[in-house]
């Protein structure tokens, strides 16, 4: 009986060992691509160990490419031009690339494996992207499911970003069996404060990173983020601005308003901010101070359906309906939208119907 058990265990483990050994040997000979040279923008060469995917290889070289899904090929953010050496387009990339992108050698860097020398093009602004260590300095409740987090930068101590850009916060492993994830959040702070950043985050039920921020993160904790990323930014002209946002979509707009105040920007601006009930509105005081400090700024809070016990004398209905009612000169405006995909799509539709040009509509969609 004992002998049987011993034989059984010995046989299974030896078969397992033989297979594992075989795989190790194969891995050593087959998956060893040796040192590979990556030429970036025809300016510099870096030498890396081949075999990994391009995204993680570049991150290990401290070149941060935006990616929200962590290399699983589901977010489509880590697009790069790979001019030489990438091999054929993979079926896992196709859904994320337009025909135009396919023709100009754009690839998902998380799916491209470094098998040999590569030639790639990285947008220069990504070189400004760095990894920051910071310390949580304050957490403020804005509504029942939205908080404002302030992080003081530790290393490096300063950040330079364009209002409207976002960073990727790293949620560490905080529960058993979890994993590290990066999630993107827009910067909401006053850009003149270069020693810290502020984020406005809404709790996503079941979300890994937002759950971490709401339940585990304490004032004084150190966290890491990288950035800044994104090309959602104010253009440089004098056309009137229509801001439309909902919920945590407040973040980049708030940052832009700070910036307009700092630079004495005299553009006419109207900000429609939507909430379901009155208690979901936040930062009202700050917005009214912007109204008095900025040259020509109007804040229009819109509540979809005020609860029975709430008094509300402002506008009601959907925020898009309010835009439709109020906006008179849509065709000469520039629109800046931020919020959920539903809000953005609806707002784009309304604005286009009102006559806003498609190229004058800019947005940051939360997906």
């Amino acid at each position, binding site marked *: 009986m004992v002998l049987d058990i011993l034989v059984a265990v010995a046989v299974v483990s030896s078969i397992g060992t033989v297979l594992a050994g075989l795989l190790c040997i194969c*891995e050593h000979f*087959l998956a060893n691509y040796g040192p590979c040279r990556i030429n970036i923008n025809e300016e510099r060469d870096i030498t890396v160990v081949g075999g990994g995917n391009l995204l993680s290889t570049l991150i290990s070289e401290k070149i941060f490419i935006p990616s929200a899904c962590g290399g699983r090929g589901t977010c489509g953010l880590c697009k790069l031009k790979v001019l030489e050496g990438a091999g054929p387009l993979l079926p896992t990339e196709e859904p994320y690339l337009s025909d135009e992108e396919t023709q100009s050698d754009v690839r998902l860097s998380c799916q491209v494996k470094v098998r040999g020398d590569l030639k790639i093009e990285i947008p220069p602004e990504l070189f400004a992207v760095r990894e920051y260590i910071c310390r949580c300095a304050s957490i403020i409740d804005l509504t029942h499911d939205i908080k404002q987090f302030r992080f003081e930068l530790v290393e490096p101590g300063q950040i330079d970003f364009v209002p409207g850009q976002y960073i990727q916060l790293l949620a560490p492993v905080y529960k058993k069996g979890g994993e590290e994830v990066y999630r993107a959040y827009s910067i909401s702070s006053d850009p003149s404060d270069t020693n810290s950043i502020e984020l406005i985050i809404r709790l996503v039920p079941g979300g890994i990173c937002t759950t971490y921020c709401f339940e585990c993160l304490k004032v004084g904790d150190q966290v890491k983020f990288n950035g800044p990323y994104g090309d959602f930014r104010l253009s440089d002209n004098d056309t009137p601005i229509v801001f439309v946002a909902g919920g945590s979509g407040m973040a980049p707009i708030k940052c832009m308003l700070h910036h307009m105040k700092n630079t004495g920007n005299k553009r006419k601006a109207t900000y429609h901010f939507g909430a379901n009930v009155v208690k979901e509105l936040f930062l009202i005081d700050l917005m009214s101070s912007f109204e008095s400090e900025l040259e020509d700024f109007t804040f229009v809070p819109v509540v979809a359906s005020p609860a029975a016990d709430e008094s509300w004398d402002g506008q009601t209905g959907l925020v898009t309906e309010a835009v439709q009612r109020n906006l008179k000169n849509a065709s000469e405006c520039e629109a800046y939208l931020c919020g959920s995909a539903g809000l953005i799509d609806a707002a784009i539709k309304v604005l286009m119907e009102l006559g806003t040009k498609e190229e004058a509509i800019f947005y940051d969609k939360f997906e």
Partner: protein
Amino acid sequence: MNLGPEISQAFIVCISAVFTQNILLAYFLGLCPFLGVSREVKTATGLGLAVIFVLTSTCMLNWLVYHYILVLLGLEFFRFILFIIIIAAFVQLVEMVLDRYSPFLYQKLGVFLPLITVNCAILGASLFMVIRDYSFIVTIGYGFGSGLGWFLAIMAMAGIRQKLANDRIPQGLQGPGITLIIAGLMALAFMGFSGVLQGR
């Protein structure tokens, strides 16, 4: 040794594995990638071909391991663990080889290999071949037939889903709901093949 009857039995088993005993539509094994990767005919083809290849080769490999190692040592009860280890190692190995030497095949099949490593259809076929006591040659036919049956089923499903993409489906049924209903109807249709062949 006269291989004639063996081969003809392998052929019959193969045909019945494709139609009457379809591993997907009669036994409902390997449903996960069937539902997940059947949105386009093109990707479904790649996955289907990978399944045919892996099913055929792992059935053969597992037959050899079962009869020449496990039966000899009286360790038949270990087949569940060993089969899955062997399948996983084999798939990993094939992926590495393809990745290195054949970018074309890797692009067509390789990317799907990790998806089917722990597919229950692959393990199921290996276990059925033991239960039904197939000989080596019949096992080849069975493995290939099962793979081909799976391939046909996912191709049909992908074709139907491509057509459905532009149709208006009641909201409650969109996505997995309608897909499972289609799978059920396809299973009924495949039941129509039973009686065509009496072989197992």
